[in-house]
């Protein structure tokens, strides 16, 4: 019998913390500047310099920890991680070893965080929580560029604050890894703690992966895939690596513990270095830095900045506002969109209708005019009013689209547009009755059909009334009146 194997995956996510200045000096953080423009004696590791921690980076890391349900200890400290590498100005990295800022916590995987092709799988609707081991704060290293016979080092990135978010070996598939990273990235961006732009290297990921026969408790030998910088790349790399490991162990072979790199172009992982070459980092507390006491205002500041997580927000939209699950997840995934929606839905009787109009008409209008939501000429309150007019039967949905076009072009309020264009639906029973009488008189055949119970005939007659009213008649009312007149008065011809 063929053994069934299951993968065990843990991730280490490196994420640049959004701050104006670097972790231990006053240099501006930035991307795309000319090499070494954003440097000073401190981040270049010149003789005699000392680090001064960036309070903002500490607060944002604690804030992240609180959002992810981590425990924040009273005392934390910075340690030195010693190893030689040209990217490291001091040949040690200031990091955190045994007293990190955050411990524990987790990220709940919602269905829409999974890749599109996996959203209908059972694991996508399991709402699994991936547990975190810790989050610590450290400084980023520089960037080497290799030429023919020399290398250049750009220290602009050196010293940028970096959060390392470490998961438990909790992840059971490449799709879950994808979902974890997607959900985590969303939280980081929404909380404003990181821009998490993977193209700029602001979010990077190391994957630890092993396989074991399903049901076995003990872990298999793991491999680490280093420095992944796209979420879909992580999924592909893990899928490849899991298949590779299963192939090796199924054939009776052994996995060698090693660090591997992923080549996205050829779609393969390959050996980078074996465990024997592993460093002894000689961690010790950085004597240049004092221990951090989180109760000295840091926790308080971080608490004041907490936001509602996207998952919780989507749940609230579905539960309290009746928005569809899909619409809720789209709205909650973008803080600007969510803010617009909440402003529009505030006090509205039909939030679901507002969500619908917002996600369809408003977003496509923005897209075709290449405008951002912040530049939207339609105010949330005006959108609420427009949907209110539809719901009250004062305009029909076709008219609503016309009104919206006008709102989007001029920024005018919907009621004013309706008045100015004379668009308001005719709901005056007398006026519709007069038109209905005219239509009934002109179409005896369909009238007989209505008497015989043919629904399509009633629609035809209603259409005729709409036509006579130049589209202004309330179609629902017109239909009711026609039906009543035909059925209630057999003498009508």
């Amino acid at each position, binding site marked *: 019998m063929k053994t069934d194997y299951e993968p065990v995956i843990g991730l280490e996510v490196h994420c640049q913390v959004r701050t104006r200045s670097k972790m231990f000096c006053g240099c501006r953080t930035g991307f795309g500047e000319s090499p070494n423009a954003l440097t000073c*004696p401190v981040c*270049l*590791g*010149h*003789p*005699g*310099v*000392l*680090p*001064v*921690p960036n309070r903002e980076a500490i607060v944002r890391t604690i804030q992240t920890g609180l959002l992810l349900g981590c425990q924040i200890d009273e005392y934390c400290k910075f340690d*030195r991680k*010693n190893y*030689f590498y*040209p990217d490291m*100005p*001091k*040949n*040690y990295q200031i990091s955190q070893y045994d007293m990190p800022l955050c411990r524990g916590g987790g990220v709940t995987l919602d269905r829409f965080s999974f890749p599109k092709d996996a959203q209908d799988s059972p694991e996508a609707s399991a709402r699994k929580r991936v547990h975190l081991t810790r989050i610590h704060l450290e400084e980023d290293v520089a960037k080497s560029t290799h030429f023919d016979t020399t*290398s250049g*080092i750009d220290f602009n990135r050196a010293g940028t604050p970096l959060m390392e978010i470490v998961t438990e070996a909790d992840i059971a598939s490449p799709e879950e890894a994808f979902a974890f990273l997607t959900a985590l990235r969303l939280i980081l961006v929404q909380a404003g703690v990181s821009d998490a732009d993977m193209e700029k290297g602001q979010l990077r990921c190391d994957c630890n992966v092993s396989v074991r026969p399903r049901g076995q408790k003990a872990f298999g030998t793991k491999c680490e895939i280093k420095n992944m910088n796209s979420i879909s790349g992580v999924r592909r790399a893990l899928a490849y690596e899991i298949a590779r490991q299963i192939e090796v162990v199924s054939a009776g072979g052994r996995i060698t513990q090693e660090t591997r790199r992923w080549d996205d172009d050829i779609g393969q992982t390959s050996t980078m270095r074996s465990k024997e070459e592993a460093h*002894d980092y*000689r*961690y*010790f507390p950085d*004597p*240049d*830095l*004092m221990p951090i006491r989180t109760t000295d205002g840091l926790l308080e500041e971080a608490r004041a900045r907490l936001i509602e997580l996207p998952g919780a927000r989507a749940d609230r939209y579905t539960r309290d506002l009746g928005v569809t699950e899909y619409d809720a997840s789209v709205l909650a995934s973008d803080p600007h969109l969510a803010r617009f929606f909440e402003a529009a839905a505030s006090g509205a009787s039909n939030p679901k209708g507002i969500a619908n109009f917002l996600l369809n008409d408003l977003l496509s209008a923005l897209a075709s005019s290449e405008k951002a939501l912040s530049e939207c000429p339609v105010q949330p309150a005006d959108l609420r009013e427009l949907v209110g007019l539809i719901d009250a039967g004062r305009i029909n949905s076709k008219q609503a689209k016309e009104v919206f076009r006008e709102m989007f072009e001029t920024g005018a309020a919907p009621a004013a547009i309706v008045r100015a264009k004379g668009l308001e639906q005719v709901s005056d029973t007398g006026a519709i009755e007069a038109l209905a009488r005219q239509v009934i008189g002109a179409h005896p055949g369909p009238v007989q059909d209505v008497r015989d119970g043919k629904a399509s005939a009633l629609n035809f007659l209603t259409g005729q009334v709409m036509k006579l009213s130049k589209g202004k008649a309330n179609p629902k009312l017109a239909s009711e009146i026609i039906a009543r007149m035909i059925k209630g008065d057999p003498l009508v011809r």
Partner: protein
Amino acid sequence: MSLPLESVAALRAQLRAGEIRPRDIVAAIRERVEAHNPALNAYVHTDWDAACAEADRADIALPLGGIPVAIKDVIAVRGQPCTCGSGILQGHRSIYDATVIRKLRGAGAIPAGRVNMDEFAMGSSNENSYYGPCRNPWDTSRAPGGSSGGSAAAVAGGLAVVALGSDTGGSIRQPASFCGCVGLKPTYGRVSRFGLVAFASSLDQIGPLAHNVEDAALILGAISGHDPSDCTSVDRPVPDFAASLEGGVKGLKFGVPKEYFIPGMDPAVERAVRGAIDHLAREGAEIIDISLPHTEYAIASYYIIAPAEASSNLARFDGVRYGHRAKDPADVIDCYARTRREGFGSEVKRRILLGTYVLSSGYYDAYYLRAQKVRTLIRRDFDRAFASCDAILTPTAPSPAFRLGEKLDDPISMYLGDVFTIAVNMAGTCGISVPCGFADEGGGRLPIGLQIIGRPFGESTILRAAHHYERTTPWHRERPPI
């Protein structure tokens, strides 16, 4: 014209009276240096034109206006070489000013000349220098002490008015004792370390070496204070040290620890220090016996903590960004290995190896962590002692200056010479060495130092005691034969 180079106050009086200009002081020092530095090797770099230009801009209304200060080659002065007495930093010039330099300039002083030292402040004889040993002005066949040997020799030899040194395990006080000048190690955190090339970050402090206690107080006052660039500097008010010198020793209680008078110490040292203690008693101080029982573990734990921190601090010297770089390296590892092999001296290599070893996986708890615990015990010794006395009196060093080469092949004996000073750094408190007598050695005379150890941030008290001792004894007026 002969200038009173041995007193900041006297120079300041002449400056303010308009009798001399700051550049005259620079010129007088230059004359002394040109005459005697070939014999002493105290200065390793001078730029007299730059010093004169700065002297001409000096505002003599400021507290140190127009006073040149010799700077140990481990403190960054923008545009000047900063080589830490090492081959690995040859060619390197600082691109910024240390905080103490900024403060000295703010007080009107002129950083003038860079003085010799043991490489990266590792040593007690100034023999571990890329530039060769500095020599003791009392006997040029002897060591000036270390690591701030250049600072002490320059001051004692009249080649500097005052100097900055750094003290990690006695590196200011021991050379002050050997050369017969005043040297003060401030409380850890009193003076910013920003711009001091780190040897052992948790122990290093910058401090003054001077001809007299008043000058040391003036310099200390100028360089002290909280620095936002150094989070280990302490945010507390800086007393006016120079103003609190008077007051004498009456009513002060001094503790004399029995552990600091050890078998094998030089009898002349014991005699001189006992004499100083008796003198202070006669001047009205109360003397009590105390115990600092963990002193005997100070050296052992120091030689774990200091090399551990040094092994990490010195990792940045790799030839990639500044200083020496090995020629035509095959690859980056070869570049690191040869740069460091060529650039560092043997004592520095020894300590990097020691430090790397004690921090290694599996050894950390047994060495580094345990040494930190011992350090806590040492600090508690001092806390307990200071509950019953205001200051502690000890010899600064167990012997007067030894001969150059005498201990070079015996690092342990060299390390043991710091037995009386190291515990002060381990406890993080302050200490001052003042001349308290002489030993007759082979026809010459060698200075002996009295160490006065104070409470954390108790510099005012030890300065006051040292000042009174100095005023009532003749030792500081003695001049070396050069």
